[in-house]
Each structure stands twice: as structure tokens, then as C-alpha cells.
């Protein structure tokens, strides 16, 4: 019996603790923050959705926004990060929008894909902690969502058989589970 919790812990351990403590807790549904939380406005949620969609965009499969990743991030931020960490994260998000207004006189959500990408690349340099956090949360939220698991990855509800050692066909997607 090696359910998800153990698998995640084992993998984190194996790879030298790649996932942050907070995200691991978030994936496990644990609540680390028992204090107060920052109120998130609909405008912030929309901005977050567009930022996440820049990390994992629509390609031949839907991206982070289509998968509702912003809801995952809002929940994990609220439940697993203390108020100061939340403040830092949403401050980072606000700065991304500010940078957009300065460079393009428009908010981040109103930019085209190329402009968003450019600004995100800049943020990766100017505000690395925010970028890393956004990226980490987006990846985890996306690949554990229905769209991420069934469209970007391959999900078999009932495999019906097991073959342990077969060739990987070129372009084959990784199993979601």
C-alpha cells in the first residue's frame, strides 16, 4: 500500500525535497495556516489565472486557465501559507501587473501572449522568489486537474491489464497516475 501521500513524500525525498513544504502540504490537503488570510479579489483571481496561463499555456491541449489552476493556487495559498507569505506572493502578482502598466500602459491580462511571455521572463529575473512560487503552484495545480491529467497526460480509469516492460512510443504522453 503506497498511496499518494507516501509516494509524494518518497519522491520529494528521492529528489532532494524538490517540492516546497507548503506545496506538499497543499497537495495533501493539509492546513498549515491556522491564522488569518488575505482577502483575494475577483480581479486578483483573474490576474492570477492569466499569469498561471503564461506558465502553462494552451498548446495542442488546454492550459492552466482552462484547468482552473487559479482556484488551486488560491486554496493552497490560503490553507498552507501564513499571512506574511501570502502577502509577499500577492504583492509579487501586483508588481507583475504594475510592470505591465509601465511597459505597455495596460494590465497584464490585456497583453497579448508574446508580451506576457516577455514580461514573465523579466519577472523570472527581477522577482525570482515570486516567479518560482507561481511556477511551482501552477505546475502542481495543472497536472493534478482533470484537464492536466487527461489531456496533457494520459489517464486510464481501468487499465484492465498490466505490462511491466514495453517500448515507449515516440511522443507518448506520461501516465497521469
Amino acid at each position, binding site marked *: 500500500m503506497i498511496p499518494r501521500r507516501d509516494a509524494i513524500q518518497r519522491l520529494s*525525498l528521492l529528489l532532494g525535497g524538490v517540492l516546497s513544504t507548503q506545496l506538499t502540504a497543499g497537495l495533501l*490537503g493539509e492546513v498549515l495556516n491556522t491564522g488569518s488570510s488575505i482577502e483575494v479579489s475577483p480581479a486578483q483571481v483573474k490576474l492570477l489565472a492569466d499569469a498561471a496561463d503564461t506558465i502553462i499555456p494552451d498548446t495542442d491541449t488546454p492550459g492552466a486557465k482552462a484547468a482552473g489552476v487559479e482556484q488551486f493556487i488560491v486554496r493552497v495559498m490560503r490553507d498552507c501559507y501564513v499571512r506574511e507569505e501570502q502577502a509577499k506572493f500577492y504583492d509579487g502578482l501586483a508588481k507583475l501587473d504594475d510592470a505591465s502598466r509601465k511597459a505597455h500602459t495596460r494590465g497584464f491580462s490585456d497583453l497579448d501572449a508574446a508580451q506576457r511571455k516577455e514580461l514573465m521572463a523579466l519577472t523570472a529575473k527581477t522577482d525570482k522568489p515570486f516567479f518560482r512560487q507561481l511556477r511551482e503552484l501552477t505546475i502542481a495545480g495543472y497536472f493534478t486537474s482533470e484537464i492536466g491529467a487527461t489531456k*496533457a497526460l494520459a*489517464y486510464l480509469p*481501468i*487499465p484492465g491489464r*498490466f505490462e511491466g*516492460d514495453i*517500448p515507449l512510443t515516440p511522443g507518448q504522453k506520461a501516465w497521469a497516475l
Partner: protein
Amino acid sequence: MANLNIDSIKELTYDAIVIGSGVSGGWAAKELTEKGLRVLMLERGKPLEHVTGYENALKAPWELKYNGKLTTEQIESHPKLARDYPYNEMTEKYWFKDSDSLYREVQRFDWYRPNIVGGKSIMWGRQSYRLSDIDFEANLRDGIAVDWPIRYADLAPWYSYAEKFAGISGEKLGLPQLPDGEFLPPMEMYFLEKEVRKRIEKNFPGRVMTIGRVANLSKAGEAQLGVGRGPCQYRNRCSWGCPFGAYFSTQSSTLPAAANTGRLTLRPDSVVTEITYDDATQRATGVRVRDAVTLEDREYFANIVFICASTISSTALLMHSTSARFPSGLGNDSDQLGRNLMDHHFRTGAAGRWEGGLDRYYYGRRANGIYIPRYRNLNGDQRDYVRGFGFQGGASRGNWQRGVAELSFGEELKNELTEPGEWTMGLGGFGETLPYSDNRMWLDKTTRDKWGIPVVVFDAGLRDNEKKMRVDMANDAAEMLTAAGLKDVATHDKGSALGMAIHEMGTARMGRDPKTSIYNAHNQLHTVPNVFGTDGACMTSTGCVNPSLTFMALTARAADFAVEELKKGNI
């Protein structure tokens, strides 16, 4: 009125009462009913219907409310259960709430108590191995505790009997320390496991790596199809309950077999508070039961009582069944009741990454890993501790989590993470824990749970022998993986409290001498011949293999003996 009383006693009288409906209780009910006895099986947990009761079994991960996670409320209501993985959103309703499962710890003990018909047979890990004479002779050889009153030859035919019905998939190896069984076809290894197996067996003569022996039907035989079971679908959702009946559980296997005889009465929500004893006949007369919901008390009568409530609950029940003859608990002339509490210790080992094999993959989710049978303190090997350990583990290919540390984003990141990552492999040891007479449990009669039962207190921990063994468990794993060619091999030891492996054993050991043990060679109380105990409580030592298959074999053997004794008029 007199006649009415006799009639109502008749109605409450069975040939045998089985307390508990898990792995052992299910087997007791099956064997006793198939041998012609009218059996009452009592289960303190709630009903759980096969197939329809497994509400989450067919759900996709994202269909679950919290994606399988615990909420703050669940963590707060289950501070002990939430300590480790078996308790989660999908299995929540299978376990007792901590507030209904009160116990005290002098030393930490993780007590996982199911609250359902079927007990832990629903959520068990399904790894199924035989003990060997190396295990049965160990206490005698080492001068530790007492000698097992049985040897492998006594149990071997019953292992075969249990395996043929339960359906165990595995590979024959011909090893003395891990006897072969009646196996269904073995599951296949992954590419990397095959590579590592070759290299371990080449570099470490005497060490063997095999696929896990597991109670999942790699192929359904007649015995299994006969009770409505189908082959494994490789969903790896076993502990949520299997709608295909593809792994052994009470519901999939022993319950339908017992029910088919027409001689089984199953009563859930029935907390047995006491085994009743008659001084005149020196026999148990039956049990007192408190309805878990209405708290109404009832009494049932039988010629034979099988205690299969799982290690801790069975011993607590014996302790709570006092009389003038047995003031410290039924059958406890030896003062051994509650002593020698054991569990396997684990959560230490090593893991590493493999370069290459990127063109190899797999299909389906194998609910099984690999197994490296014990090799320490065997064949002339001698360590600074006694007994040994086996390794469980497996290989996998990296998933999306591997990409988290990088800085890329956008299409390139997405495309990369949708492909499988590199191979990794890990090994984790499962070690034997010795029987220590002061590793024990007892009842705190001043504190009672909501059913009025005194709560259990635990005071048991790992000692020097286990701690020394753990050093080998980590280092050997790393040494084998390194020799097999894995890179960046790292050891880990996450610590192991007793109870965590959910292989709790001992506290009412079998033995040859009534002065030093509770049960005899037939799992019969030395001093009350119509009472039998066949769950983990009877274990005289633990060996290092997963114990459920041994409980099945012991139960079938004891049931056979009990019915013979009944026929002979001895009980």
C-alpha cells in the same frame, strides 16, 4: 414462562461465535460454517456492502472533493490516525474516529482501527508471505521469549489451503527462508527492476529479488470465480475497496463462501464487551454484546468462541473478561496477556536514479512492488543483532514533479513535463521486532470509551536489536542500489513507531507451557478449551514478512481442530 426462556436462549445460541470479521474472523466464519456449524459473526464496526459500499472506488482523483486530502476538521478529529497515510479522504469512513477510539500512550503507538465489516481486510497491503522454520525455531535458537509450539510442517498444508482460496500471485524461488506457495502467475517487473535484479543477484550471491507475492488475482481461478471474484484490473485503488473483487478481502472472498452455506449470521454494530465463563463447566458460555448504536446489551451463547478482533482488541477483550477463576483476564494464568507487543519496524532504506532506459515504459498500474527476502543472519552471515529484514520497493519513472526546480516556463515546460521522466528506484526495509515482556499494553479501568469499555494503554518501543538492524536496512539498500548501477543513491530513516506498519502482533502468545503462554499449538486457550484466538495476538515472534497469510493459515488450521474436538466431545 420457563419454556419461553428456553426458546429465547435457543434463539440466541449458535454452534460457534466469531468475534471480528477481518482477515482472521472471515476465515473462521468460512471454515466453521463449511464444516456444518451454525455461526454468529460479530463485528463492532458498521456494515459495508461489497461493491456498492465502495463509494469512492471508481472515482477519478479530481472527482474527489479534496483531491484525496484531509480537511482541517478531519485532522482535528483524527489527531492520531492523521499521523500517517492509511487515513485519507477515500478511506475515511472505513476507520474509527479518534474520539471513538480512545487510547493512551506511555510511548507512542499508532493504532489503526477499522470501523467496518471486513476490518482491515479492505485496506490491507495484500503482501502475502509464508513464515519458515527459520522463524518458527528462532526463539528457541536465540533463547528469546518462548519457543513456538508449532513448526513449518504443521502450517505448510494450511498455507497451501489458504493460498488456493485467497489467490496469491507470485514467483517460486526455492528459498528456505521464504517457502514457496501455490501461486497465480507473477506480475511483471518494470524495465529497471529487471536490470537491478540481475545486478543484485550477480553482485551479492545469496540475495534474491523477486516480484511481490500479493493477494491480487493476476488470473481468477475456479475457487475465486466461484465466489464472484474477477481478475485484477490494475487500477491500484485497492484500499478504496475493489468493485471487481480482485483482491482478497472478507467481502470478496470469505463472507460469500460462509454466506453460501446458509449457516452464517452476521451482526455488525456489535461490540463484544465480555466473553462469559462458567466456573462449573470451566468453559466459555458465549459473549455479552453492546449494540454500538443503541447501547443495548444482549447475550449470545455458543459451544465455541473464536476471538479474531485483531491483536489489540482481542487482548483487551480477554483482559476485560474477568471472573473469580480468571481475575486478570480470561486464560491469563501466565500473566503473559498484554506482554510481548510487537510490530514490524520500517521506513528506512535508500533510493537512487538510473541513467538510461528512457525508451522503456509500462501499461497499467501495478498494485505491487518488488521483494528482497531476508538474507541477514543466514547461511553463516552474522551481524551485531539477531533476526533480519526483507526489502520492499520498486522502480518508477519521474512525473511532472521533477520539473519544479527549473526556471523554464511556457510551451517548452509543458511539453517536457508531459513526457515521462527518468527512472528511479527505492528499497525500504521491513524488520523483525523481538518479543520483549515489558513491551506491553494494559487496560486503564478508570477511563472508558463511549461503549463503557476501559481504554487501552500502550508502553512499547524499539530496542537496541531493532536499532542496530535499522543501520543495515539503510546501508544495505544503498549498497545494493549502488552496485546495481544507480546514481545519487541516498539513504533515509524516517523513524518507525510501533503500530505504524499495522502488523501489530503478540500480547497473547502461543506456547507449549500454560505457565508461560496463553494459547497452545492449536490456538486454543490452555485453560479454556472452547476458546480460540487466531489473529496477530497469538504470534510468538514476528518474522520479517507481512503476517496476514499466516493468520489465514492459523485460523483454518484451528477451525479444523476445533470442529474435530467438538465431534469427539472434547469441547
